């Protein structure tokens, strides 16, 4: 009988498959928690990042891995238009999530250490120290760079606020051209 002829090999195959599956599985992953930079203090940071990184030809392009949302680039709401209206709270939240999920372990370690370095991709690439198609957009010590590093370090003082305000403007080197 046809079914009988294949019953034993089938059983062997199923058993082998089970063994493989069991051997590949381990104990369920334990839930990890990360202490990440402040969401509440991100609004001004998000505007600075949006100005330097979030235009449609860079991370404001939906094709980018690290998506930045806002007025300069892609809008979160299908009825909003690039270049019009301000960056919304939802867009800032979406940008925050884009940024913190990139390297949560590295970022959490930076928070714990009280500051981020170039091993965090946002800084390493933003500063142009890691291969970055967009080149250097965060000048070390510059306003936008200080805004981001202070945010990671949890230093929410006046210097942070001023750095973020200045960092949100990417002004032409001359006005009259």
């Amino acid at each position, binding site marked *: 009988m046809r079914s009988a002829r294949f019953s034993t090999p089938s059983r062997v195959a199923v058993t082998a498959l089970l063994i493989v599956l069991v051997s590949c599985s381990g104990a369920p992953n334990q839930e990890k928690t990360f202490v990440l930079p402040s969401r509440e203090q991100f609004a001004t940071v998000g505007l600075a990042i949006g*100005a330097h990184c979030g*235009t*449609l*030809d*860079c991370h404001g*392009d*939906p094709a980018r891995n690290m998506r930045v949302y806002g*007025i*300069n*680039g*892609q*809008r*979160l*709401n*299908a*009825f*909003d*238009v*690039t*270049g*019009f209206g301000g960056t919304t709270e939802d867009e800032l939240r979406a940008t925050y999530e884009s940024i913190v999920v990139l390297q949560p372990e590295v970022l959490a370690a930076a928070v714990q250490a009280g500051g981020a370095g170039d091993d965090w991709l946002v800084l390493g690439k933003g500063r142009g120290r890691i291969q970055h*198609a*967009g*080149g250097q*957009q965060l000048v070390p010590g510059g306003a936008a760079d200080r805004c981001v590093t202070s945010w990671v370090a949890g230093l929410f003082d006046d210097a942070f606020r001023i750095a973020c305000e200045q960092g949100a403007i*990417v002004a*032409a*080197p*001359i006005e009259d*051209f």
Partner: protein
Amino acid sequence: MRSPGFMALLFVASCSDPVHDDAVLALGPEALGVPPGPGHRPGQPCSECHDGRGPGNLVFSLAGTVYRSPGSRIPLPGAIVRFVDSALQTRQAATNCAGNFFVLEDDFEPAWPVWTKVHFAGIEQPMGSPIFRERSCAKCHADPAGPTSAGPVHLVPDDFPLPPSTCP
């Protein structure tokens, strides 16, 4: 032993960029009655073909199309598009009867970012953000405006009076 023809085909195939080829193909054919040249394909991303990979002969540093107003789709000839880059290099280009302008790569290799303004009839319209790397205006200024496009480059609102065009 492979034939020379096969080897040549293999060489050509290995040099082609299917993403670029698809992007060029997606632009479609030339508009009826408009030959390839400075007035062709207004509103399309110029650098798709003019980036050195062809099929356009000239390589553009920056190029695009300027319209009178966002809803008009009427080109704005005679406007001056000015640029300054982060190394303080400045350039300018005039729009033609199709509203098109271009700056050749031989004349300008920008130190990004680049800031730009359109000047016409005493009006100056700066772009809200700098250009960080894109050489074609239409990549970010596609028609229509929406959540991933600022809409076509234009000078004034729809109801703003401008001098009539001098183009035929």
